[in-house]
């Protein structure tokens, strides 16, 4: 059911297109899509722009319903969507604006190893990562938390697992928000959600989640890369995962809770999946408290995944991870809503910024950036596909002026899963990747075909747009050499 978008798209400049407020009755603000001429052709092929317009219906929305260049069709919100609401103007919180995988995100770990050190051991390294790091469906993690421990973990975030010796205090400093959101209430997380999450902390999951061994391929900004401890040919580990079943269930519970809420508060919505509640309502507050707890869970999950990877490197290279200097460069969320200070209509205000498949990209000197990065801007980690590249960017002032401090989050799919399977036509994707110098291990061959490089847009093109638009600047490009997936 491919449906092309037939509505208006007015060119604002070479990086931005507008859906005027007049397109649909009920839009409170215009839609703005960051893109370029080429990417825009793909954007028009599905209903993602329609979803950008629908989000503009949400009460209290400020400035514009925004979309990043990796925009694609989601449910309710598009993937790559950004929406900021003001609680003082009846602004809403929407679980659909965060997504099922609350605080899905990416972290990047550096090392003092270089490509030539790892190349001879690559197959062994990937096999061992695949053995040690739980991937795929129905896999339990190695770490068990009883009910009481899980509550602490949900309330405290990364510091809870680091406190139990699974990482170092430095890991917290280099995690967005310190790996912890205030106001998380474990009791707002249903028993069902806690049961779903109980054995999944420290598991990768499936779909587009991955753990990759990467090589720094090209450095674009020496000073920024230096501050992050990155240089050409260096080995890095990138981890992409989220809050697992716990987060999915929190979202699910919230959507069930909100089935009647829009009517109750007189909110008219063009799509059920946009369900929302005023921030200042019992329903809104309950979701926020649960969502924050799920975000804390996700940070613990990525922390434990990183720790397992560090241990595997330690085993293979016969040194501790500290000796290998496997320090966390940064960890970003790309499915989240956060209460942040921004300027809207000439006033500084606290807004609820929903980032659904979009990454925070605070500019240099922003107080929420760790001291080591204060001069260069917040590191932004952009995963690409498993054959081509991933990126590290740094936040720029343009993001505060145009996108509530936000940039893209990845390549964005170019093909649906069914189309990707058809395209693969039974080809051995693992073999093809190997011919490109990438060793890939996955639980599901089907999963590998659905996630093949061709299924994604070229991440370089997406990055080009956010760089040109001044949202975030290129720092370094990495290419994958080892991949494990669900």
């Amino acid at each position, binding site marked *: 059911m491919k449906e092309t978008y037939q509505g208006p798209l007015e060119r604002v400049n070479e990086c931005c297109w507008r859906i005027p407020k007049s397109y649909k009755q009920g839009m409170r603000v215009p839609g703005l899509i960051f893109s370029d001429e080429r990417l825009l052709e793909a954007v028009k092929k599905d209903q993602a722009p329609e979803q950008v317009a629908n989000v503009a219906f949400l009460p209290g929305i400020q400035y514009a319903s925004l979309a990043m260049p990796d925009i694609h069709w989601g449910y309710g919100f598009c993937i790559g969507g950004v929406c900021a609401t003001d609680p003082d103007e009846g602004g809403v919180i929407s679980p659909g604006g965060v997504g099922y995988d609350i605080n899905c995100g990416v972290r990047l770990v550096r090392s003092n190893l270089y490509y030539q050190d790892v190349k001879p051991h690559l197959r062994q390294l990937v096999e061992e990562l695949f053995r040690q790091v739980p991937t795929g469906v129905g896999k339990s993690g190695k770490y068990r938390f009883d009910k009481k421990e899980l509550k602490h973990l949900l309330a405290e975030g990364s510091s809870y697992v680091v406190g139990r010796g699974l990482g170092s205090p430095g890991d917290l400093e280099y995690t967005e928000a310190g790996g912890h959101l205030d106001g998380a209430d474990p009791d707002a997380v249903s028993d069902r959600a806690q049961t779903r999450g109980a054995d999944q902390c420290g598991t990768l999951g*499936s779909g587009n989640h991955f753990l990759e061994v990467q090589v720094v391929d090209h450095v674009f900004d020496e000073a920024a890369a230096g501050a992050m401890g990155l240089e050409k040919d260096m080995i890095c580990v990138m981890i992409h995962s989220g809050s697992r079943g716990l987060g999915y269930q929190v979202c699910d519970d919230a959507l069930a809770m909100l089935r009647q809420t829009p009517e109750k508060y007189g909110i008219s919505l063009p799509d059920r999946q946009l369900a929302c509640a005023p921030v200042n309502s019992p329903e809104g507050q309950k979701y926020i408290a649960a969502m924050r707890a799920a975000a804390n869970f996700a940070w613990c999950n990525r922390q434990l995944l990183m720790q397992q990877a560090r241990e595997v490197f330690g085993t293979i290279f016969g040194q501790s991870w500290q000796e290998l200097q496997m320090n966390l460069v940064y960890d970003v969320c790309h499915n989240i809503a956060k209460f942040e200070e921004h300027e809207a209509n000439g006033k500084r205000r606290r807004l609820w910024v929903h980032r659904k498949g979009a990454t925070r990209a605070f500019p240099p000197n922003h107080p929420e950036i760790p001291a080591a990065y204060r001069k260069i801007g917040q590191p932004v980690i952009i995963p690409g596909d498993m054959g081509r590249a991933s990126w590290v960017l740094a936040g720029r002032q343009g993001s505060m002026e145009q996108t509530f401090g936000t940039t893209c989050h990845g390549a964005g799919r170019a093909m649906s899963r069914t189309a990707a399977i058809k395209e693969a036509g039974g080809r051995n994707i693992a073999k093809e990747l190997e011919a490109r110098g990438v060793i890939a291990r996955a639980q599901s061959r089907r999963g590998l075909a659905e996630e093949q490089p061709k299924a994604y847009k070229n991440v370089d093109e997406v990055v080009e747009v956010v760089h040109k638009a001044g949202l975030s600047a290129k720092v370094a490009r990495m290419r994958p050499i080892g991949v494990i997936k*669900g």
Partner: protein
Amino acid sequence: MYETFEHTADLGLRVRAPDLDQLFGEAAQALFSTIVDDLATVRPTQKIDVNLKGEDLGYLLFDWLNELLYRFDTEHLLFGKFEVRIENQNLHAAAWGEPFDPSRHSLAHEVKAITYHRLKVEKEKDGWLAEVIVDI
């Protein structure tokens, strides 16, 4: 009978059946065909009962699939056979299956959630149609 349809990042399930009981049973089969590569490998050694009150048929379908997904995610139970009775928008069902066994079952997708996006249960000329998009 069911087929999958395209949705960029996710997967749509389209089910047709002569009556509602079969429609809900086939929708459950479609869901588990998404999770496991070959549904024929799932043996009906365990039975669970599911009873749900519905507000409307769309939500009822959603809640039914959601309950099965929850059982899979928490108890690692795969289901392959279903008997469903819909009465006054309430559901009474039995599902048969067995625990996931990696030596015999090959899993295809992690379904994160059933979504409300374009959720549809409709009477057609000669039967019923359901559409649901699952988040992968």
